[in-house]
């Protein structure tokens, strides 16, 4: 099995009045047919990493990389027009808050049909049939009603399921989920994650799961990259996250209050300048090391 996606030496810079700000600094990683988590605090560059893959860095931001390869094809060499064929069709992205990513004045069914027909060139009836099936796949009980509804009639959890349906309907190879459940309640969060997990594994897709929530990532992903100030400081298997060795990861874990093991004072993360200066750890898995 080879890698779906390979990112080599990615750097994203933003010019500011006080010089260049490097949001992502020289990171490399790969994605197979797996669930890859990216965790870190706000400002650590995890969302920018996700956006860079789709080349969604807006001017004046500068994206530099040796290679961003989707199944061997370098995305950096594509024209903007060819890139539009990749976005949504081969790699799609779920954003944090469904409220801001759905069109408020368009019926949900029409939005999903549009997403499908843009890529599949199907007839209207075919698109509607596909859309209803997809809504059912994300466990929406009454797909006909949701099809006709507007986004404001939906709750946050429903909205996020609709986003998942819309992003998965063109059958992409890679799904990038940027904090898909952070705006949701714990119980709803679990449902949405389960739906996403089921669909991703059924279709053999690669998933990049960006989150600040260490618990969710450790329970949900296969492999984790931990980012700090634009660099990958550590990479490990998700279920071994609690055995992480980097002081930053350890500090983050220690600062979480635990229901079962109470403490009087929470540990506070002591930052070390060395972490910022250290080189990125590579998150690449070579073809040989795949089982």
């Amino acid at each position: 099995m080879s890698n779906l996606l390979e990112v080599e030496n990615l750097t994203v810079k933003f010019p500011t009045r006080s010089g260049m700000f490097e949001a992502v600094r020289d990171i490399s990683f790969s994605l197979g047919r797996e669930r890859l988590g990216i965790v870190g605090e706000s400002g650590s560059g995890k969302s920018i990493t996700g956006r860079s893959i789709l080349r969604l860095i807006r001017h004046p931001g500068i994206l530099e990389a040796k290679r961003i390869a989707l199944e061997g094809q370098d995305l950096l060499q594509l024209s903007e027009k060819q890139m539009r064929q990749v976005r949504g069709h081969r790699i799609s992205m779920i954003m944090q808050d469904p409220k801001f990513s759905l069109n408020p004045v368009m019926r949900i069914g029409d939005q999903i049909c549009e997403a499908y027909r843009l890529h599949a060139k199907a007839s209207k009836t075919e698109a509607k049939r596909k859309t209803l099936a997809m809504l059912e796949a994300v466990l929406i009980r009454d797909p006909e009603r949701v099809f006709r509804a507007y986004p404001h009639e939906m709750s946050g959890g429903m909205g996020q399921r609709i986003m998942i349906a819309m992003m998965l309907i063109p059958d992409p190879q890679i799904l990038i989920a940027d904090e898909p459940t952070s705006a949701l309640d714990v119980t709803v969060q679990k449902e949405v994650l389960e739906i996403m997990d089921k669909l991703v594994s059924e279709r053999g897709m690669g998933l990049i799961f960006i989150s600040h929530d260490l618990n969710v990532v450790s329970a949900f992903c296969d492999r984790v990259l931990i980012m700090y100030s634009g660099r990958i400081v550590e990479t490990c298997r998700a279920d071994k996250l609690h055995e992480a060795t980097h002081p930053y990861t350890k500090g983050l874990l220690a600062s979480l209050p635990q229901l079962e093991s109470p403490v009087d004072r929470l540990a506070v993360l002591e930052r070390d300048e060395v972490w910022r200066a250290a080189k990125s750890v590579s998150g690449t898995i070579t073809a040989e090391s795949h089982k």
Partner: protein
Amino acid sequence: MSGGTGISLESVDVWFGEGEERVDAVIDATISVPLGGSFGLVGESGSGKSTILRAITGLAPTWSGRISVLGNNLGKTREREFYRSVQMVFQDPYASLHPRQTVDHVLSEALYLHGFKKPDERIIKTLDDVGLGQYFRFRYPHQLSGGQRQRVAIARALIIEPSILLLDEPTSALDVSVQAEILNLLTDLRAEHNLTYLMVSHDLAVVGHMCSDVAVMNLGRIVEVLDVASMRALKADHPYTRQLLEASVQRRREV
């Protein structure tokens, strides 16, 4: 410190709108928070937990039942004296601070409204208390990080020396590392100033860390009140509480 009730609610209903439009946000809520205690309200969004705080402060004027704070029953309006003793910290420090007012302005306004003398000393002392220091006094919110902003919001609430703090998801907009700092700060401040906390959160672990008793809300009703020890032992009677507890424990797959 002990003895006496800080906040007590008896059969409180809160609703919004009238007639057909009426939405019952809180139904028949009864809680009691001892003076110097720390009480948590948990539940999903829309379960009415923030509405209880808003009813206490007078931000949700349509309520019935009995609310008493420090032994005084509250009417439809609040006296200035009430706001001397009860202050609220809001969820999102990015939204709750005026973007064009400096920290100094925000804090002096609170002092001015309550007729405090010698604002200078007090501002410096409070900024020290919340761990910011004078250096931050003349900054605007956009020059502060999320954690620093939340410290300013806490300073604004504390500067007039209230005895009760209402905390509406004080850390949910912050990173875990910053959350730990703010929670520690709140713990320290409560010990130093003998504060009473009523804290709303959707995170059971946070409530478990901060509070001694917890009320679980679902669809506007308080379904269960339990102490933290039984919460830790996952001993809950109501199925909804169990579901919440399981959801927050299960998320961690310990190996």
